[in-house]
């Protein structure tokens, strides 16, 4: 009995059950839903969000947050795209893209730690800055780069798994191992759980925070590449709103906003759930507007559920 309760309190298992139920129900109504190709499509649909969710969960677990992620991603992708359009090599373009978002992340981290400001507000501001820079580079137009990033979609591992999906899963695995198994990760959790304690235990809190923001920035560029590949073009505003989706995925997955709690797998399942919902509603032919309402309702339910376990904790 106690064990059953413990299992239900575990966000990961709760989410897995919810996802499984949805798959079974929707699958019975419309068998197309459970075809392997559709399942791959779902993973492909969430691949951008998946990577961003990883960045966001690292930061939220560390006790911070980054609301500039969406615009940071767009900026990185815009840099890649414009270099590709100028005929620069793929390697150079990608390197520049990675550097761009890494610097953005570092910038966030430095401001937040040096001036001890609230990450929520600061990153809201820096996000605007990144967006502005993207607009300066891209203007208002679509940047098209002659299918040069199609390989992310077209290369399929084992003939089934698109490269972008594999990369996303790799990011999930990487973050999971980082947070759970490494000294760096455990220290980040400790900082998020009780910053004062971490400092008094001799941890260089500022440094770790800066590294977390920078690392998250570096990873954002991967999301940017996947986004550009999926759209086969990019605009300066293509990333807006993604940061909120990532935040929602985290919270649904049991990563609480006060830091120090939650799992990477949970966050990923949260992200997957949004993908499953959206795909299922499409397949069931739900009207686009109704779909928005249902999505919202499910998010609210999931967040309430995730909160119930922490209410019990009190």
């Amino acid at each position: 009995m106690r064990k059953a309760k413990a299992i239900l309190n575990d966000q990961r298992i709760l989410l897995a059950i919810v996802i499984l139920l949805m798959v079974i129900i929707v699958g019975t109504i419309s068998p197309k839903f459970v075809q392997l190709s559709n399942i791959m499509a779902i993973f492909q649909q969430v691949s951008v969000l998946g990577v961003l969710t990883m960045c966001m969960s690292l930061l939220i677990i560390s006790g911070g947050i980054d609301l500039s992620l969406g615009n940071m991603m767009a900026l990185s992708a815009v840099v890649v795209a414009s270099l590709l359009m100028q005929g620069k090599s793929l390697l150079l373009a990608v390197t520049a893209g990675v550097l761009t978002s890494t610097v953005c992340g570092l910038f966030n981290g430095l401001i937040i730690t040096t001036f001890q400001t609230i990450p929520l507000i600061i990153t809201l501001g820096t996000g605007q800055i990144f967006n502005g820079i993207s607009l300066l580079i891209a203007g208002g137009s679509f940047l098209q780069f002659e299918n040069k990033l199609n390989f992310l979609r077209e290369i399929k591992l084992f003939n089934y798994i698109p490269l972008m999906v594999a990369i996303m899963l790799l990011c999930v695995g990487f973050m999971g191992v980082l947070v759970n198994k490494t000294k760096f990760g455990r220290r980040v959790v400790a900082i998020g759980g009780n910053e004062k304690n971490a400092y008094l235990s001799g941890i260089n809190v500022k440094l770790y925070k800066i590294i977390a923001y920078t690392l998250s920035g570096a990873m954002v560029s991967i999301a940017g590449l996947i986004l550009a590949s999926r759209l086969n073009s990019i605009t300066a505003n293509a990333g807006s709103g993604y940061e909120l989706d990532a935040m929602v995925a985290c919270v649904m997955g049991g990563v609480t906003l006060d830091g120090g709690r939650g799992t990477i797998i949970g966050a990923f399942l949260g992200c997957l759930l949004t993908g499953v919902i959206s795909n299922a509603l499409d397949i069931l032919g739900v009207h686009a507007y109704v779909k928005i309402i249902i999505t919202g309702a499910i998010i609210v339910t999931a967040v309430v559920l995730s909160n119930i376990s922490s209410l019990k904790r009190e």
Partner: protein
Amino acid sequence: MNNMNVPLITLRSISKEFPGVCALSDVSLDLYSGEIHCIVGENGAGKSTLMKILSGAYSPTSGQIVLNNEIYDELDPETAQNLGIQIVYQENDLVHSMNAVENIFIGREKTKKLGFVDKKSMYSEAKKIMQEFDIEIDLSVKIENMSVSDQQFVKILKALVNNSRLLILDEPTSMFNIEDSTKVLELVKKIANQGISVVYISHFLQEVLDIADRITVLRDGVVVKTYEEVKNITMGDLTLHMVGRPIDKFYQRDKIKISEEKRLEVCDLKLNKNSPEVNFFVKKGEIVGIYGLVGSGRTEIVRTISGADRFYSGTIKVDGVSVNINSPKDGIAVGIAHITEDRQQLGLNLCHSVLENLLIVKLQQMRKSLLYDYKKQGSRVQSIIDKLKIRTPNLLQKVIYLSGGNQQKVVLGKWLITDAQIYIFDEPTRGIDINAKYEFYEYMTELVKQGKSVIMISSDMPEIISMSDRVLVVRDGSIKDEFTQDEINEQNIVCSALGVAI
């Protein structure tokens, strides 16, 4: 004791000023290897602040720390730890979402290649130390699911796993029962025997006299006296220096006539389906002491009465009328004030002012209009502050900046300010200095004189004996014995609590 001639660490005229408060002025102290150096003083005397300067949590306004012939103007936590200074802070400072073993090694994680943490070796090292010092806790349990005393052991283990030359323990036993306290005292002696210098802070003066090699008394941020020898000192001497005037060793309470009317009756109370039934009552003007070992269920019983926890069945009557208490709010409404055991976590809004904290319950009661009039309450609040000797620069100081003992007094104060009829105190004087303790006893006597009723849970035997009109002993979740008048003595109570024949 070895190396008696060369101090391990010297503090040279340390001063520390906080905005509006001078916590330490010109404090000098030598610490030798292998000695147990106790520091005593009233709440707010500056004991914790001095230790935080040693551990690098605070930097001194002026003064120096000398260690290994090196002179430091200030330390930071990392440097201090590398120098072998380990500390168990007075406040609860653990990461609640992590388990015990991880907490023990925060900042000192053991790693394999590539920065992967080595859980196995962390477990085995922690276990080794637990065995050595006879500590028993489950290392894989998350802190938030641990009892307060287990958490305290985690803090102690955390200080022990690292190589230390100086171990500072700031009121390590204030959360413990006798048994666990004894463990800690044994541990301290063992450590000192290994040649490590130990600084031990406590308000239990008997403890201090038992283990100290030397004792330093602080008052108002100044060293009043350092005893080089402990043999011939009495508790009276210590308190004289702490307080600046002599105070009695045993508190003598005015007994008053207790009315025959029952204020509170608890009938057939069952906490859950299989627990034993609990029956007891409290009369008007009576102080009922509840004694029991930690884990005996005494706290759980009173928690249901005040509405902090739900119960399975039974009735609670106040003034003969049965009442429904399902939440703390209901409890307050029928006039029950409950001062909880775990004050730091449950009792205070640390980031709010002393004034707000003191008035938070009161305001619920007097909410008639939308606006609160804080100012009107000023004199009332001030009188509580004076009575309990809460040391704060002003009413608007945030509680987090008060000393540990003064925070506890704020929790006491906030319930004393309300007009309750029944007061439930759970370990009311933990961490409170002896002087303030007696002031609190006065206050409690004052309450019963007004015809109010008091239930007091306490592990402090002198406190139970001198304050209670009646003592109930709880064991295995039920009330096993009741003692009145002459029966109230240490032997009766302890035997009953342990369940051995008298």
